[in-house]
């Protein structure tokens, strides 16, 4: 079945910078994905609930405030609670190298730091979503 991949692009936390998220969203659109863009300052609950209702294949979050170690794993856990354990979770933004292993351990599939070509993110999502 030929279907577009659905991705929720979300900005958890309090920083108000969504330029990067918008650039990635636009690149995803151009790659044929359906991007649900939820806007700024979303709580993990809002993100997980939206992901369930929208039945997305992937949740892509961007964070610049430094709260990634707290917020990313929280979304992963909430998704599991809501029966969305098959939803791929990826993150991006200003994230120190040393935090990445911990985030992966917590269930974030990949972290894309500044300078990552959008193509790389898109290819990763395309190759790693868990549904046909």
């Amino acid at each position, binding site marked *: 079945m030929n279907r577009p991949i659905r991705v929720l692009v979300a900005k958890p936390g309090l920083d108000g910078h969504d330029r990067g998220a918008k650039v990635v969203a636009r690149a995803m659109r151009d790659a044929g994905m359906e991007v649900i*863009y*939820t806007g700024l300052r979303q709580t993990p609950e809002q993100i997980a609930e*939206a992901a369930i209702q929208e039945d997305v294949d992937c949740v892509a979050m961007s964070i610049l405030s430094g709260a990634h170690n707290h917020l990313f794993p929280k979304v992963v856990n909430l998704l599991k609670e809501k029966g969305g354990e098959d939803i791929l979770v990826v993150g991006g933004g200003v994230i120190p190298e040393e935090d990445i292993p911990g985030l992966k351990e917590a269930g974030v599939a990949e972290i894309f730091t500044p300078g990552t070509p959008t193509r790389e993110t898109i290819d990763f999502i395309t190759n790693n979503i868990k549904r046909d």
Partner: protein
Amino acid sequence: MDIRAGLLAGNKRAAARLITMIENGDPEAIEIIKENYAKIGKARIIGITGPPGAGKSTVTDKLAKLVRKQGKKVAIIAVDPTSPFSGGAILGDRIRMSDLNTDEGVFIRSMGTRGALGGLSKSVHGAIKVMDIFGCDYIFVETVGVGQSEIDIVKVADTVLMVMVPGLGDDIQAIKAGIMEIGDVFAVNKSDREGAEKTATEIEIMLDLNGMTEYRPPVKNIIAKDNKGIEELWDAIEKHYEYMVSSGNFSKRRQNAIETEILEIFKQNLLDKVEKLEKKGEYLSDLIKKVFNKQIDPYTAAIELSNILNKEGGE
């Protein structure tokens, strides 16, 4: 995941998955809808349409919150355009509905138009049915930002709310045919801006010219972002519903919707058969060549195609 059981138990993930299956043309989804069809028809369907940037999402958000205060279960289906080039889309209506996200009694689903031109997605019919089976009392369907002729919403909604804003054009825009004719209730949003009264007056004048006697669509000035005029707007929507029911137009409109739907499905089935037929032998391609070479014309080609289809069955 057991979608059938989940759907009836009020599991959002099951309902969400079923809508995805409908969007992707999964035949299993049609079976599930068939099994539950007798339950369908209880939800009220309110269409929200208007030009891009008029505030459709914000109005939807405020109306949904009002209805939630009455303890009703609400679904919102929000449609945004799909790129004709990549097939991708950015669905951004949820941005204006953030605090509805975590409300247990609200289900929001964003959809891309996926090639449909009438302001909706062709899966909207199916999504409405899923929400209805799911037990929603009100289903708000928000169209893409419309121009002048995207009127498919009138074929699915019991009440069409037209959201306008000041400053979009002169009064000739209001008397053109198309979207302005399908509003059951008009809202002039952003009424704190200059020209709001003028816009409302122009709509009123257009309605005067319609010469309608039995029901006249009301025009409400609102400021959705400040929640101003929302209760009056909802009253107007309720009054339209009461009128529809008492006049018998409610069942008439629903029957029209069913007619449209049957014919759409019929057309789609026919096209699917042509596609299957094409895989067997290149009938359509041959006809195209013949028309291109002026051996026959497109009218004759269409008749020949249906003759072939009748003979071959398209199976």
